[in-house]
């Protein structure tokens, strides 16, 4: 098993090393004439106004949270999906009903969020 993953490990190192190598090449080739105006934020000839930080809507957080929950659901559904054909050949409809209950509870959560307007992008 680890033999297959050794490639992923080596490839990870290559993939992580690739952008820095490219940037070093560019650093050797490119001109370097910085200036205070050039380095201003959103260089456009005008001073920027105010702080970068804006109060983000709590909506972003709710979306991220629903996403985390459904991500976990996916991680649980994948093993079931792999085993499903074998399971239903051996035990009939019962495993499917169990998964329907599992997903149904989460869909109830999604419906609740929907009803409460948490899915609206205000």
């Amino acid at each position: 098993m680890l033999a297959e993953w050794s490639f992923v490990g080596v490839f990870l190192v290559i993939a992580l090393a690739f952008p820095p190598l490219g940037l070093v090449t560019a650093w050797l080739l490119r001109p370097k004439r910085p200036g205070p105006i050039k380095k201003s934020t959103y260089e456009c000839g005008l001073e920027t106004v105010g702080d970068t930080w804006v109060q983000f809507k709590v909506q972003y957080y709710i979306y991220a949270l629903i996403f985390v929950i459904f991500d976990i659901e996916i991680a649980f559904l994948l093993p079931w999906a792999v085993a499903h054909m074998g399971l239903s050949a051996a035990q009939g409809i019962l495993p499917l009903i169990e998964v329907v209950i599992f997903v149904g509870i989460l869909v109830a959560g999604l419906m609740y969020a929907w009803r409460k307007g948490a899915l609206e992008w205000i």
Partner: protein
Amino acid sequence: MNVFLTSIFVIVSVITLVGALGVVMARTVFASGLWLILSFAGVAGLYVLLEAPFLAAAQILIYVGAVAVLILFAVMLTRRVMGDPGVSQNNSQWGAAAVVAALMFIVLSLTSVQNWRPSTESPPLLAVNALGEAFLGPYLLPFEIVSVVLLVALVGAIILARE
């Protein structure tokens, strides 16, 4: 090969620990979040070395891909994230820290002097398949309870966010 594996284990462990250290040492909350992600990724590497690839991928998918985003979004919602770190997050409770560290040391040293018997069985070839069968077989109740826990988390978050 064993020396090779051990050295990889050491590298991955160091990455995990450096990430964990970075979380408490970082000056801004955002940087702390980034160090936490490094630590999560290191844990995924440890799972690979333990020949639990499904767990490793799930760790990346859920922790690095999802929980990290959730944490960074939460940071965006806090007041003053840019510029100066403002009030230091470290509130310097040396006494409490010493007690926790001592307790942690006792627990860790007790577990490491135990004579654990490592499993000599090789991991199942179709691990994902076995996992799916286990979810719907002997571990059905925990499997269903997970869904209830997730539902509670969702409802709780929506109620909190509406306040």
